[in-house]
């Protein structure tokens, strides 16, 4: 696969993605508490099957929303760290290739 983008195009695509993600929070007429679709679906199951009780609870749940947020942030940070490392190395090695020439 060969794919190259100019810096301007990359920034444009990233800005567009950011707008798409942010839009629901500012657009008028969108109702909802922005709760997770998994919670919404669980409620739908309980509504469709009154009396359905989840037959097993999670082994462990984060004790509070704050701690849950921290663990989600940790997950994102781990991923972003590794991704940034690889992209940085690629970028650096490309520069070296060029410098060697």
């Amino acid at each position, binding site marked *: 696969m060969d794919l190259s983008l100019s*810096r301007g195009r990359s920034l444009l695509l990233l800005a567009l993605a950011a707008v*798409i993600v942010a839009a629901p929070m500012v657009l008028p007429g969108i109702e909802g508490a922005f709760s997770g679709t998994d919670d919404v679906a669980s409620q739908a199951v309980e509504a469709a099957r009154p009396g359905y009780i*989840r037959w097993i609870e999670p082994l462990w749940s984060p004790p509070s929303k704050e701690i849950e947020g921290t663990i989600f942030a940790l997950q994102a940070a781990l991923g972003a760290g590794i991704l940034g490392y690889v992209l940085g190395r690629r970028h650096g090695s490309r520069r070296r290739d060029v410098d060697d020439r």
Partner: protein
Amino acid sequence: MHIMEGFLPVGHAIGWTIAAAPFVVAGSIALRRTLRARPEARLTLAAASAFTFVLSALKLPSVTGSCSHPTGTGLGAMTFGPAVMAPVGLIVLLFQGLLLAHGGLTTLGANVFSMAIAGPWVGWAAWRVATRLGLSTAVAVFLGAALADLATYVVTSAQLALAFPDPASGVAGSFAKFSGIFAVTQVPLAIAEGLLTVVVTAALVGRERSGEAGLHPIAGGR
């Protein structure tokens, strides 16, 4: 979002686990083979896995007024083939199931099937078809990533519909209802993931061409 712990009846939980298991085994073998043949691919694989890690941690708002997260599996499926994403997705889902009570162990098979098998295969197929049709690499990558994301939640909706068919309208009615929750929410997020994946793929595999970016003035003479 994944199916929560305990929200699939026992039979379905076991069935999806049995369905997903061979893909995880085959994917692990494919992964080892790839790394043995191309040790230099290790870093790209780490980046593709890390991308899934980041994106599935980000719960984003959508037009339905609820939140969901992208999957990030399309990138790896397009660079390494869809098979290797099964073990990669399993690791992400285990992390979230064990540490975040997001998804779960009894629903792990079903969630692996949607996010780590169906999504990557659909995304990979869409990317291949788009390439064959002569679409540009950027458009093909966009389609591959966006459809891998969307397909994941279409399958999640189908899994819940099969487990909880509507008393009046059956599985089809129930599928419509769960799609309204999962798939519709996912549409804008899938588009955003597609755009982001194009940028990340270019950074990962792309080669700057002379004069195009102005990023490397020193490369101008190439």
